[in-house]
């Protein structure tokens, strides 16, 4: 089988300029140039090899990920990469790890919910990775139901501290990436109680491990929640559990941009509108939709190329068999997915614009478009992640039996992708939010 010839022939058939299409896909020439440069950098560095992930044990896989993350940080500093370049490098490393949560959730949470003083203190350390943080919201008994969280943060005016406590087994923090073995700190969400009143869920910066020997601090029980779906895949990540036994943190470690507690224990909402929190959700969901187009496009890329290489049936008089991509049944399954990858890419681009529009309006105290933006991002997150998870599995089937091999790339892609259908809210629940908004409209 001369695979080389097949794809060269295929490329000669193209009726458009591929290089120009690359710019459209990337979003701009600038974005393309960064991606092209950084992806080549990662591909040519043997530290970032990933072809053996499927045969590593959980412990080896995890340690290998630590090694890669450390090497990536070294290269980022050696090459003096910008924040944008560094983020692309982590993206092309293509290995879920604690750094995703550190940069993707911990740092943004402090940026969004911390006061200027808090940002100065914590971001300085976080940006240098002198501390490593994660985002501890979800609990064992309460997934995306934030209102149901049970962890408490009770203010003690005598010592000017909050007492963070897990009152039940179901209140154990469960799932946060990076929490289990690596994070030294976490943004922890807990019910704020002061002066005998419960003011609902608020964020707190809590140190989990010693910065000297990495052992958990007194009152902290922390560990990994166990092996997850798929070989390799998300098992490179130390998703963790965490319980607090009356852990004390200074009052100024409550994230106080949106509301604060005074030295006397008085709860004070700030002038900054709470709707800003919903703005953050729009941001996160926009990222998820963009991620859907990436994952689906990877699966479609594999299935399309292999459909052009693979030949089945159709030979007459000893001639070559037919390329499976020429069968209408194959096209009817593959091409709508190819089209969906592009569709999700463009709707993701539009969501990026929507987020900046919403942010500008919020800064001008205009909340009029927020409910609609919130509903539509919820719906698009649901729609695109469900379609992508189904699409990757369809691509596996489009590759016949070989799609089931780990080295096809599809099993791991699927295993890494499917959690998207349940994070940031279960997809069906999110659609019901959209429906509620539609009914109100």
């Amino acid at each position, binding site marked *: 089988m001369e*695979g*080389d010839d097949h*794809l060269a022939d*295929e*490329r000669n*058939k*193209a*009726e458009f*300029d591929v290089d*120009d*299409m*690359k710019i*459209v*896909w990337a979003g701009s020439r600038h974005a393309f140039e960064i991606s092209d440069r950084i*992806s*080549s950098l*990662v591909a040519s560095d043997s530290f970032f090899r*990933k*072809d053996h992930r499927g045969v590593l044990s959980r412990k080896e896989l995890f340690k290998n990920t630590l090694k890669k993350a450390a090497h990536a940080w070294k290269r980022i500093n050696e090459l003096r990469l910008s924040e944008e370049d560094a983020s692309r490098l982590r993206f092309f490393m*293509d290995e879920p790890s604690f750094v995703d949560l550190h940069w993707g959730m911990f740092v943004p949470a402090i940026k969004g919910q911390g006061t200027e003083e808090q940002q100065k203190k914590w971001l300085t350390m976080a940006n240098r990775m002198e501390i490593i943080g994660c985002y501890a919201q979800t609990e064992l008994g309460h997934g995306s139901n934030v209102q149901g969280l049970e962890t408490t943060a009770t203010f003690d005016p005598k010592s000017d501290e909050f007492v963070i406590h897990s009152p039940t087994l179901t209140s154990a923090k469960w799932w946060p990436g990076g929490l289990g073995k690596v994070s030294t700190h976490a943004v922890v969400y807990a019910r704020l109680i002061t002066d005998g009143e419960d003011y609902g869920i608020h964020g707190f910066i809590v140190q989990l491990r010693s910065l000297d020997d990495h052992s958990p601090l007194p009152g902290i029980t922390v560990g990994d929640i166990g092996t997850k779906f798929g070989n390799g895949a998300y098992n490179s990540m130390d998703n963790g559990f965490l319980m607090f036994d009356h852990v004390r943190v200074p009052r100024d470690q409550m994230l106080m941009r949106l509301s604060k507690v005074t030295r006397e224990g008085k709860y004070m909402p700030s002038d900054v509108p709470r709707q800003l929190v919903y703005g953050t959700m729009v941001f996160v969901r926009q990222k998820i939709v963009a991620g859907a187009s990436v994952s689906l*496009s*990877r699966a479609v*890329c*594999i299935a*399309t*190329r*292999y*459909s*052009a290489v693979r030949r089945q049936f159709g030979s007459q008089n000893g001639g070559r068999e037919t390329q499976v*991509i020429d069968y*209408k049944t194959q*096209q009817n399954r593959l*091409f709508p997915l*190819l*089209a969906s990858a*592009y*569709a999700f890419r463009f*709707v993701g681009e*539009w969501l990026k614009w929507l987020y900046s529009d919403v942010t500008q309006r919020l800064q001008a105290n205009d909340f009029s478009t927020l409910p*609609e933006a919130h509903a*539509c991002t919820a*719906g*698009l997150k*649901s*729609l*695109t992640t469900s379609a992508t998870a189904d699409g990757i599995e369809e691509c596996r089937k489009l590759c016949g039996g*070989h799609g089931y*091999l780990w*080295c*096809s*790339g599809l099993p791991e892609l699927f295993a890494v992708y499917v959690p998207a259908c349940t994070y940031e809210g279960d997809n069906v629940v999110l*659609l*019901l939010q*959209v*429906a*509620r908004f*539609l*009914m*109100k*409209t």
Partner: protein
Amino acid sequence: VSQLGSGKPPVGTTAYMARAEHLLRCRSGVQRAEDWLKPSVVMEAFEARSIRMAVACAKNLGKFENPEQGFAELSSDLVEAAVAHCQLIVVSKFIEKLKEVIPGKGVKKQLENLCYVYALYLMHKHLGDFLGMGCITSEQASLANVQIRSLYSQVRPNAVALVDAFNYTDHYLGSVLGRYDGNVYPKLFEEAWKDPLNDSVVPDGYHQYIRPLLKQ
């Protein structure tokens, strides 16, 4: 939906609901398969389907004394209405993208093909909604299928180049089947040899388990 008569115009992605009166009554004007390549025709069909499903839900909700109970009871219908609205958003954003100036030989044409593949495939997949809500007729649905087949033929010669445009390195793609050079089968063999089970010709456990079984 409950605010449509209030005079307060819907915003953003629900702006089409301001044309409720038209969208609740209109019928698609498609007469030939090529008519399905008109953005306004596709948009109208998706908008009509979405608003009709939403209004149908709202009407049914109105039959319940307690709205929350009605919401719980009708949740499956509501999810379908939400999906219709979200699919409309994706289709509309793809069509909007095509209104931009897109440089490059043949690039726009390929994107147009993909846009209509996406929209018409969704229509085909959710045909029950479109027919049940009276947005299109079964003849128009057949014409949409004819058009999809024609679009597939146009996408076919460009398919590999369309995925090359993602510009993924072999490292990032991490797939023997999806290798850029298409040299799949020799590489599958190479990968197989690398597996720890192939470290020895006779497997660990032969003397302990297989031999006694064979020699019993």
